[in-house]
């Protein structure tokens, strides 16, 4: 939201990236006129929103992508002599995906959903009628959004709210949708507790969370940066963190600074609870540091000012992960994906 919308598009923005980080991808604005001719207008719009971070967290990106794909499917007509199951993915879907990836590296949830979608399409019998196949895909996308996004959010907030007790002091970092829902849910249950919001001064999304919680009648202590983190964490009962993804080795991919908060809390003996939808789990990739899978902040990508968007929290700092299906340790990624 706070990113200026009219920033000039440089030709070689990657040339300023310091050597040590030159392997890490970065979101890029592609003028709509330069996009591939087959890219659907709905997807074009989503790509622009991702490149400008108007859509930034994994679930909103996933949802926007699925809704755009819905439009792509609706407007799709199988050419004569072809079937949807053979033609749609290579000739229609893939250019959309390529374009989206160019705008910003795909998040893990998008990768999972696209894999599931392709699997669904492959399962169609070659003789399935065009309309029938399209109808099936649209239904399936609605089901996915409902089940893995909407219901997941509801279930996680319910499950996590049960972990909050009367009189707790809870600490969180930045603003994560699931953490916010959980706190509001617990408040609705009539529990009284306090929240410490630690913010990232380069994002300041925690400030919005602080205001929302305050308006719900929850006492909030707001700290604009990681200064004085040790004593603040030590005073907390639980730390609630939201995640962008969880890797096969159980480590958490989350906004930069999350690992610092989790580490500090774990070292102070405070429980660290991570909230994450299963659609964000990646069972194929393993990441043990923050320089393997990450993204460079496109606004801070030079030696004058450099920033990575995410960091990697080792599962030893995570007490538990709450998903819509089950709650477990960070190193035992949910079975149900």
């Amino acid at each position: 939201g706070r990113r200026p919308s009219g920033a000039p598009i440089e030709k070689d923005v990657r040339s300023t990236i310091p050597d040590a980080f030159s392997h890490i991808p970065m979101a890029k604005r592609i003028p709509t006129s330069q996009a591939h001719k087959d890219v659907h207008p709905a997807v074009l719009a989503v790509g622009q929103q991702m490149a400008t971070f108007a859509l930034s967290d994994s679930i909103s990106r996933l949802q926007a992508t699925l809704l755009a794909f819905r439009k792509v499917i609706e407007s799709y007509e199988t050419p004569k002599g072809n079937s949807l199951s053979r033609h749609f993915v290579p000739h229609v879907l893939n250019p959309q995906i390529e374009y989206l990836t160019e705008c910003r590296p795909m998040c893990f949830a998008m990768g999972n959903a696209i894999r599931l979608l392709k699997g669904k399409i492959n399962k169609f019998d070659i003789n399935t009628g065009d309309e029938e196949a399209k109808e099936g895909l649209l239904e399936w996308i609605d089901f996915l959004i409902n089940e893995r996004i909407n219901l997941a959010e509801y279930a996680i907030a319910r499950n996590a709210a049960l972990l909050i007790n009367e009189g707790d002091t809870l600490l969180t970092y930045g603003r994560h949708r699931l953490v916010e829902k959980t706190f509001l849910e617990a408040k609705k249950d009539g529990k009284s507790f306090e929240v410490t919001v630690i913010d990232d001064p380069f994002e300041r999304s925690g400030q919005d969370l602080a205001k929302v919680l305050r308006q719900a009648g929850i006492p909030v202590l707001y700290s604009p940066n990681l200064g004085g983190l040790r004593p603040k964490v030590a005073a907390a009962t639980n730390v609630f963190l939201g995640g962008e993804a969880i890797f096969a080795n159980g480590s958490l991919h989350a906004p930069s600074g999350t690992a610092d908060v989790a580490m500090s809390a774990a070292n102070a003996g405070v429980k660290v609870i991570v909230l994450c939808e299963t659609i964000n789990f990646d069972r194929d990739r393993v990441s043990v540091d923050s320089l393997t899978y990450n993204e460079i902040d496109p606004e801070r990508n030079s030696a004058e000012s450099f920033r990575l968007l995410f960091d990697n929290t080792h599962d030893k700092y995570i007490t538990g992960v709450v998903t819509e299906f089950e709650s477990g340790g960070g190193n035992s990624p949910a079975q149900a994906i």
Partner: protein
Amino acid sequence: MAPSQASHVPTLDGLIKSFNNQSLEASIESLIFLLKRRQVKGDECAKATAYILRQVVAKAKWNDVDQLLSRIASAGSRLARAAPLEPVIGNVVRRVLGLIRDEASEDRNADDIASEAASDIQTLTPATNPSVQPPQRPALPHRPTLSALSSGLQVSKSMFNLLSVAEPGDSPMTGASTPMSQAQPASIHSLRSEVMDGIEEILDEINQADDQIAGFAEIQIHPGDYVLAYQPSRTVERFLVKAASKRRFTVVIAGLEASGAGTEAPYASLRKRLNSAGVKTVNLASNGLMAYIPRVNKVIFSAKAVYQNGGLLVDSGSCIAAQAAHEYLKPVIALCPVYKFCPEDPSDEVSRGELGNPSDYVSYANGPAVGALDVENTVTDYIPPDLVDVYLTNLGPQTQHHLANILADHYKTEDTGFSLQLGEP
């Protein structure tokens, strides 16, 4: 936090010059004013305190050692109270108090070495040769021993501290220094000039400390290193620039605040100097540091104070840098000149951190929504000793276990208790 009207902040040099042209009281008041506004900070506090105390020695009325000690303690505690989170002020005051005791005892030793002092030696330290001989190094600072800790009275009776003998119940500042209280003007005069020379030496030490620490740079920094410098202070800057003259490495500068558009990139001059020496720099605009530590070889920052237990008072955020480095077993090097060593344990206030102005982060124009929030902008951190690998002082690198020696070499046990209450005027 830089004051918004930077042009109204006098430079330290300007301030010190002004001391000469105004009365002692006016000088003290003007420094107190600046300390309270946090416009004199860190090592500037140490220098300014030393200059003020020199003025006290030169200008205040005192007729004997006790009076001088009490003048220094009273002026010192006023300064210390103005900036409770600048322990260097108290350190300099202690150093000056110790210096006065040394000079006074030296004078006295010269006078009475054959009489009273010698008998003290005989009674208190039977193991030493009782024959009358002048102490080999009278100026050697007093080291507390085991017996010293168990019996304060004996300590203060020891030969070097005759002038500060404290009877139980006495004010800690005054002592029964009978001979000196009726001292002749000549010896007062010489004491005055000796103490002023001594303060000059302390000032030299403060001024040279950064260069001396920088002298150890090439030992600590190796070719190809990625060095994370957290909010590089002048001490750290000098260290890095010195290292850059010998080594090719990369400096990752962390601890930047979000700066508004159009402002100059932070640490521009440091980066320019390092770059021109062939050292690469990266300004991290990041809150969290765990992401970068795997790439980094060591973490360097400077301490605002080092406590007796080895804990550090540092700029806010340094603690997360130290913790993150510790997690990845990367060395944490704290640059800390000896004058920042504080013979006290950290207070609760210190371990919680000093709170700063939150308005840089929250707009109060935002009305009730923000008004109802408790905003805590912590500006200092406390780092426990187990997170620090090297204490790099101007006397060389030290570990936590040898800090007691440094404290013993620089402060007198009588003065370690110097604190805000003791000096109430």
